């Protein structure tokens, strides 16, 4: 039990770690990694329940998908090639979704995977062998999108991020929303999530019909 307690204390750090994507865009008091995980877990249940998925696995996968960030930290696609130490340039850099060659994508993927895999193994080191295996296997499925559950949760992660982006954007419009939509339209192919994207579009971009009257 003490080992479980120690693990819980470690993952509790995610309740205080802000999501880097918001930090570089200058959002004040941004959501934490744990806050993102919370809504994603609820979303995965609500949006995944009508699909032929192992919903228990889907919710667990959502809950563990970012645990590695306790030690690996949060990274954004901008970090590998476009990152500048000059904070004044961050706003400009994040106006466009970053593009990479095939080779760069493969290198970025491998680097991130290796770093996060190592961090996750360190985090779960003292858990029981069965728990360790389950967490690692859920994470590998999520990271690589090996099975339908992994693919669904991977896409859902981006959708939750889009929802949060739209909420911040609607509030102050202090950053460009385009990069979120662009990446999502290249990434999402799940019919239920494509449908949900239409609802997001209607809610945040289109004027309600009663407003037009």
């Amino acid at each position, binding site marked *: 039990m003490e080992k479980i307690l120690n693990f819980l204390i470690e993952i509790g750090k995610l309740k205080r770690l802000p999501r880097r994507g918001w930090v570089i865009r200058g959002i004040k008091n941004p959501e934490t990694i744990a806050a993102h995980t919370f809504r994603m877990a609820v979303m995965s249940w609500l949006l995944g329940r009508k699909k032929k998925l*192992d919903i228990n*696995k889907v919710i667990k996968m959502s809950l563990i998908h970012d645990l590695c960030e306790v030690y690996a930290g949060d990274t954004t696609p901008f970090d590998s090639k476009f990152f500048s130490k000059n904070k004044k340039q961050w706003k400009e850099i994040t106006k*466009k*979704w*970053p*593009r*990479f*060659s*095939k080779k760069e*994508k*493969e290198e*970025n*993927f491998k680097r991130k995977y290796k770093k996060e895999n190592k961090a996750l193994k360190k985090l779960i080191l003292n858990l029981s062998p069965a728990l360790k*295996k*389950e967490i*690692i*296997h*859920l994470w*590998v*499925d999520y990271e*690589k*999108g*090996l*099975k*339908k559950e*992994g*693919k669904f949760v991977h896409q859902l992660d981006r959708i939750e991020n889009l929802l949060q982006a739209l909420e911040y954007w609607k509030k102050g419009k202090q950053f460009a*929303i*385009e990069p979120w*939509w*662009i*990446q999502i*339209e*290249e*990434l*999402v*192919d799940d019919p239920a999530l*494509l449908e949900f994207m*239409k609802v997001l*579009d209607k809610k945040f*971009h*289109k004027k309600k019909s009663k407003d037009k009257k």
Partner: protein
Amino acid sequence: MVKEKKFYLTKEGLEKIKKEYKDLKDLKFFKTKGEMPKIWHSEDLNPEYLSFQEDLSFLETRIAELEYIFKNAELIKTPPKEKQNIINLGAQITVGVDGQTDEFEIVGTLEANPALGKISNESPVGRVLLGHKVGDEVIVSSPIKTVYKIKKIKYLTS
């Protein structure tokens, strides 16, 4: 009648799935005999395998799922030379977008992995790129208008 979903796979993707199917059948065989080969303890193996060790019904569900995929699988073939100037499944393309250059491969949903540039033919961008040629400007416009200018199309010869 409901139209069955087609699963478009590259030769490599189909081989991978065939291997998984064979492995799972072997696992089922060992499991029903009450044995467990050491190989299944490797963490690099398919994440499903852990649940399979615990629950035979998960194993059977996945086997049935793979059988459904085989039944509806369609191998992505390299188009004839005269049609290799058109984007189809299996095309490796270079596009200009937002003043930058990007590289994609258009694949079926089972093999899609945008982090590696493998875009699903069922994603909004994958869908609109299909059927276009070098020089075409393809617009994705819901809700943000994005223009993809097609610069290069290439197919790996099988």
